[in-house]
């Protein structure tokens, strides 16, 4: 929605939203308004429905309750205004795809036909590579990238479409601390310099703490939104789970302990959906 001034319409609005996958209720009655330009961290245990929330925003999964608005309209598949950064997943070293090709796919891969190289496309890819400090990786086969390098290219791929909203789905998973802070720093730079709205799903809250404006905590089938200091407290989480939950702050880090196991099934809510999109 480039026509609207970014300060007025919220980037994302959920009203009494609920999601059920199969027979399992992930969350319900979630009210959330993400103003344009905000950095929102979405945290919660495995299976609390964080990734499914992103699928709703991407238009890949309908809500089972309530309403959702993304950039002023209904979520639709393949919106150009949304960038998506996935989990780090290493590929086959012999896959004939270089970093540059992966980013090109983010720009025009969804269009029908063969597609001919154009200077404009090349310029935009170079720009995205620069935005992710990845120009030196342009010609490297993606199967040979390290985990951190891979995520740099994923960020470039998400930024190449100049999105207004950046959805990050556990981009820090299986990265070492140095790469984790590199990835969050790149995303935060985009957020600050371009006013891009960021929704950052993460299992690990600490690398995101310095950047997040607010936190959405999903757990016990519900969600709490607020600043880090408001949400990540023993009091709030204990109330959410109706059980004693301890939030420990030490050395600038936050540790959540005592999350009831029953409220948080550890298995993936719907592994079939992950697999079904593969060829």
């Amino acid at each position: 929605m480039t026509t609207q001034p970014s300060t007025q319409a919220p980037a994302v609005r959920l009203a009494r939203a609920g999601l059920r996958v199969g027979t399992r209720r992930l969350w319900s009655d979630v009210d959330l308004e993400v103003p344009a330009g905000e950095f929102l961290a979405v945290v919660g245990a495995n299976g609390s429905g964080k990734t499914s929330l992103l699928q709703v925003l991407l238009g890949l999964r309908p809500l089972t309750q309530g309403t959702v608005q993304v950039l002023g309209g209904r979520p639709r598949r393949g919106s150009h205004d949304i960038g998506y950064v996935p989990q780090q997943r290493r590929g086959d070293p012999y896959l004939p795809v270089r970093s540059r090709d992966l980013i090109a796919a983010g720009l025009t891969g969804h269009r029908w036909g063969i597609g001919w190289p154009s200077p404009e496309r090349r310029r935009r890819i170079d720009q995205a590579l620069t935005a992710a400090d990845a120009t030196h990786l342009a010609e490297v086969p993606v199967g040979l990238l390290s985990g951190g390098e891979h995520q740099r290219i994923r960020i470039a791929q998400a930024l190449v479409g100049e999105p207004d909203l950046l959805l990050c789905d556990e981009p820090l998973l299986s990265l070492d601390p140095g790469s984790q802070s590199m990835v969050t720093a790149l995303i935060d730079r985009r957020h600050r310099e371009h006013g891009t709205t960021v929704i950052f799903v993460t299992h690990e809250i600490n690398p995101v703490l310095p950047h997040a404006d607010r936190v959405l905590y999903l757990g016990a089938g519900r969600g709490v939104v607020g600043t880090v200091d408001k949400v990540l407290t023993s009091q709030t989480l204990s109330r959410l789970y109706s059980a004693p939950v301890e939030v420990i702050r030490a050395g600038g880090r936050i540790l959540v302990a005592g999350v009831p196991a029953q409220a948080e099934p550890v298995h993936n809510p719907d592994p079939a959906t992950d697999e079904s999109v593969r060829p």
Partner: protein
Amino acid sequence: MSTLASGPVGTWHQLFNFSHYGQLLALLHNSVIAGAVLGVIGGLVSRFVIMRDLPFAVHGVSELSFAGAAFTLLIGANVVIGSLVGSIIAALTIGLLGSRARDRNSVIGVLMPFGLGLGVLFLALYKGRAANKFGLLTGQIVAIDDPKLAWLAGTSVVVLLGLAVTWRPLVFASTDPEIAAARGVPVAALSPVFMLLLGLTVAMSVQVVGALLVLTIICTPAAAAARVSASPHLVTLLSVVFATTSVVGGILLALGSTIPISPYVTTISFSIYLVCRLIGAGRTRLGRLRTRSYPTSRVTDARSRGCATLVGLWATGRAGGIASNRRRGWPGAGIGGGRRDSTGDQELRQAG
């Protein structure tokens, strides 16, 4: 033609016999054209077969294609149509029932022997020329008459058009299904579409190299190309060149002999693969030695020099040392060597 199969000279003449070559070539030019067409299509499709990890599916589809062809041979109908119908049924079944890799492989494992069994049954009932039977499994040089060539050409046009329309989304969905879905690519729908195109290509290949050896056209060329380059365009181009060289070269060598064409095609195809592996291994060592000082400028230099030469192939592709990384248990760590960059990748420091 050769007379004695016993002595070494006799065997040689049975394998390679270039007497009356011009006349033979004129007589069998249909096969050469069919081979060239098949090489182009096979090379293109083989690229996606490798990317989507479908070689087993190719084999499965070709066995059902064989069953279809055997059935039409038995009832005296057009073998190409039988082969096409068998292929399409198999390809769609695999595409619809096996969207996940594990499911897919078991579906293929179930279908394949059934198809082969049916084919054997039909062939056993068939009372015609034995060469026709054998040809379906291993290919034959004289099999391509004018109507058959027309069928092959028509099918090729369909496959080419299909690939041209779906090219970019298909590449995207094959490399990156999750992101492709998020970007609005109909990933799930593309799978049966590609299987259909694959089925058509398999049915064509069965006519030339026979059902048992289809993989030599629809797997080996792209597997070889992926060893020497990582550029998608170059890999596609090389795959087409390799497939065409194998099929047309195989036909030309087989013209005067009494042996089916498939051993010639498979041998050329396999030799190309071996050479590509060697080049790939050599380039890997080269890459490791040179990445230490300047990781990417090397690639750019090579590009500007032009990448048609083997030297160019060495450099444009994989920048890092695959073999060395595997030895060290660091997949992908070798690209940077001891390099560090501004924001700081920890892995690189550890790797270096």
